[in-house]
C-alpha cells in the first residue's frame, strides 16, 4: 500500500483512471501497447491489476465476475486469485496471469507498465 515515495513519482507509473471509474465488485480493461490489462475493484474497496488474459485459454478476465479477491473467467469459469494471478481450486497450479504493479495516489490508479 505504501510504497517508497520515489516509486510514486517515477515516470514508469502510468495513470489509467480514477478509482471511481472502476465499479465495485467489477473490473475495467485498459489497453496498452503491451497488451490489455484488467483493473479490478473488490467488494471491500481494494484494487488489483492483472494481464487481461486467463491462463487457461486467454479469456478476458476483465469481463468476469469479481467475488472476494478472485475473478471468475468469463469463458470457462476458472477462478483466478487477483493478488497472484493463479487459478484457485481444482485448477490450481495450471499457469498464472501476470500481476501488474498497481498504486493508488490521491484517488488515481497508477499501473507499472512502463
Amino acid at each position, binding site marked *: 500500500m505504501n510504497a517508497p515515495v520515489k516509486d510514486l513519482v517515477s515516470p514508469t507509473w502510468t495513470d489509467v483512471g480514477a478509482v471511481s*471509474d472502476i465499479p465495485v465488485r467489477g473490473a475495467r480493461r485498459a489497453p496498452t501497447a503491451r497488451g490489455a490489462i484488467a483493473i479490478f475493484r473488490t467488494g471491500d474497496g481494494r484494487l488489483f491489476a492483472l494481464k487481461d488474459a486467463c491462463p487457461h485459454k486467454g479469456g478476458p478476465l476483465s469481463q468476469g*465476475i469479481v*467475488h472476494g479477491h478472485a475473478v471468475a473467467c*468469463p469463458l470457462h469459469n476458472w477462478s483466478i486469485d487477483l493478488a497472484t494471478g493463479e487459478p484457485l481450486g481444482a485448477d490450481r497450479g495450471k499457469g498464472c496471469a501476470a500481476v501488474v504493479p498497481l498504486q493508488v495516489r*490521491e484517488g488515481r490508479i497508477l499501473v507499472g507498465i512502463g
Partner: protein
Amino acid sequence: MPKERLVVVGNGMAGCRAVEEIIKRDPDRYAVTIFGAEPRVNYDRIMLSPVLAGEKTFEQIVINDAAWYDRNVAALHTGRKVARIDLAAKRVEAEGGLKVPYDKLILATGSDPIRLPLPGADLEGVVTFRDLDDVGAMVAAAEKGGRAVVIGGGLLGLEAAYGLVRRGMDATVVHLMDILMERQLDESASYLLRGALAERGVETVMGAQSEAILGEDGSVAGLKLKDGRVLPCAILVMAVGIKPAVEVAKASGLACQRGVVVDDQMRTSDPSVFAIGECAEHRGIAYGLVAPIWEMCRTLAEVLTGDPEAAYEGSTLQTRLKVSGVDVFSAGKFAGGPGCEDLVFRDAGRGVYKRVVIEAGKVAGAVLFGDIVDGGWYYDLMRRGEDIAELRDTLVFGQQITEALRGADPRSAVAAMPDQQEVCGCNGVCKGEITAAIAGQGLATLEAVRAVTKASASCGSCTPLVEQLLQLTLGDGFQVQTGPKPVCACTGKGHDEVRRRILAEGLKSIPAVMQALEWATPDGCSACRPALNYYLLCAWPGDYRDDKQSRFINERAHANIQKDGTFSVVPRMWGGVTSAAELRAIADIVDKFAVPTVKVTGGQRIDLLGVRKEDLPAVWSDLNAAGMVSGHAYAKGLRTVKTCVGSDWCRFGTQDSTGLGVRLEKFMWGSWTPAKVKLGVSGCPRNCAEATCKDIGVVCVESGYEIGIGGAAGLNVRATELLTKVATEQEAIWTICAVTQLYRETGWYLERIHKWLGRVGIETVRARVEDPEDRRALYDRFAYSQRFAQIDPWAERVAGRHAEEFTPLTRRLEKAPA
C-alpha cells in the same frame, strides 16, 4: 546545570502526551514551553463526539487542567499560533511577534479537516468537525432544529450525524462510496451499520457525489448532488477527511511529503526538531488515530531522555465507532489480501457479523459488528503474531469458547458439556433435552430431532452441534444426512429456503440475504451472486435494483462473449419473421462495422459474430434505428419463439402459428427466468417448428392448442409432456404466461424447465394452471413484472447507461500527480 529548552508546537493529544512521557522519565531535564492555537487547555479530542451528542460535558474530557500546566510547564501560550521556525537560529516565532529559542523542538500540530471546494462552501452553516469550536457551532445550529446533511460516511461523519440526531435534528449522511467507513469495514458490516443507523434516525445515501451547496440569504439551505437530487438542510457538516497540518514546517524548510517526514526516532530533517502525531509521516504513513500517537510519544520520550536507540516501527490500527448501542470494531487487514483466508460467523437473530482474516497461520485483521467483546483479543493475537493453528476451529466464536476448548477434541468437549447448557439459541433447547429425546424416543435423524425438540429447526447454526450429539448418543448408528443441495459453498441453505425467506423476511438486497441467511463468505461467489440477484429480481419487481456486478458478462454486456473476447449480436426477429427493411439494415451494419461472420441461428434469426465490445452501442444504435431490439440470445430469460408458417400459407396449417408465436414473443420478451426459456409454435402435428422439444411448445390442432412443457434438445434430449389443451389463442397465452411465472417463482437458478418439472411434477403444475383463479393470479404477476422488464437494454445503453462497460480505460501519459 541549566535546563535544556524544549518547545512544543501544538497543545493537542500528541503534544501534551509527549510532555507527560518525558516528565515521567526525567522531570528535571527540560524547561518546557507549549504553544497552542486553541484558546484552552488540552482535552481528549476523540471525546468530542460524546460532547456533541450531549453524553459528556467539556469539563469531563479535559486531560490536563490549569494546575497541571502550573506544576509541569515553564510557559503555556494558548490561543497563539506559531508562524515560523528559524532553524538556523533555533527559535520559534509566534503570531504577535513573540520569539522563543529552543534546544529541542517538538512539532505536534495535528491535522486540518479537508474542505471540499464546492460552490457555496463558504456559506454560513457549513462546518467541519475537529475542535471544540466546531462542536459549539453545531450545537448552536441544532437548537433551531431541521435537517443536517453530513458529507462523508467515515467515522467522523457518522459520529457527527448521530450527535446531531441526539440534539434533535434529522440527519442524512451522503457518502461517495458504496460502503460506509470503507477504510475500516467491508460490505457486510457496512450493510448492518446502515440498518443500525437508520434505527437511530441517521439516513445514509450511498454512491452520492456532491455538486454544490445551495444557500439562502448567505446561509446554507441544501446540498445538490450530481444526479440532480437536492437535500435541504439547515446545517452542513463536511467530514471528508483530514490533511496533516504541515504549513509551518514546510515554510520553515523541513522536509515534508503528506506529513512532516520523520525517521524511527521521530526526528525530522533537522536533528533538533521532532514531529509526532497526525502531522508526522513515518515510513510513508500519516496516521489518523490515537493509538499510534501514544507509541510515538513513548519513543520520542525515550530518545529525548537519553536512549538514542529507541525506535518507533509503525503501528497496526484498530477502530471502534462511538455511536451508543452500535458496536463496530475493525483492525488490521480486515479486508484480507494476498494469501489471506477468511473465517466468517453470522448470527442473523442477534445482528452479529464477524470476519477474522488469517494470513500465514496468524490473525492479520478482523471486522466485527454487533458483538465486539473479542475485538481486543483478536487485536492482541494479531499484534503478538501468535500462531493460531490450535485455535482455528473455534477462533471465530471468541476467546471464551476457544480457551474453554483449547486443545480438546470437539467430541469430548461436546461430551463434557453440562446438560443445562443451551445448544439451540433460537428455540432455547439445552443439551439434556436433546440427548433425552434421542435416547428416550429413539430418534435417529436430524429431522427427527428438529421435529421433536425444535433444536436446529430455525437458523440452523447449531446443526453441527446437534449432529455431534446424535453421534455421541447413537455411536456409529448415526449417519450424517444430506439436506437439500446448498446453493453453493458459501452457504448450507438450499434454493427453496433462500427463496422462501427472501419473501417472508422482506429481504431486498444481496447483503440483506447474506446476513439473514448467515452466508459464510463476505460477498458470495460467482455461483450464488447471480442466483440471489435473480431471486430478488423475481421477488420484488419494480423495487429491486438489478446488481450488474452479479451478472455474467453476457447479461452485463447484453451480448454473447466469444472465444476471442469479441461479442455476437442477435437482434429479435419476432417469431422468426423478418422483412426487406430489416435485412437491408443488417447488411448495412455488417458493411459499416466490418462484421466478420453473419450466420442464421438455430433459433430462426441472424447472428452477427465478432463485434468489438467498444462497437456494441453503435451497432445497437443502428439496429434500433431500423426498429430492432435485443434478442436476449445471452439471457437467462426468454430467448426465441420458433414458429412455422401455419394457416396463413401452409396447406396443412390449422391455426395462425406464426401470429401466435409473434404475440407470445412480443408479450414475453425481456422476462428474466431461472434459466433460458425457448418456445415453439407449430401449426399442425407435423411440427415443423420442433415445438415438442422446446421448454414450452404449442402444437395447433383443429380444435385448439395443445400445450406441452419440459422439452429439451441440448445436453439432454426430451420431448415435452402434455400440460393441457385449450380452445382459444387467448387462453393459450394466459396458460403459457402462468406456467412461465410458476417456473420463475419456484425454479432454482440455472434449472431448465425440464429439470424443474422433474422436481415438482407435471401434476402440480397442471393443477395450478387449470385452476382459473390461480392461473389468473400467476398471469397477473407475470404481466406486472413485465412492466419493469420490457425495456430494450440496447436502447438504454445507446442512450448512455453504463457507458463505462463499453469504454476501455484510457492511459494518461503525463506523469502521475506527485
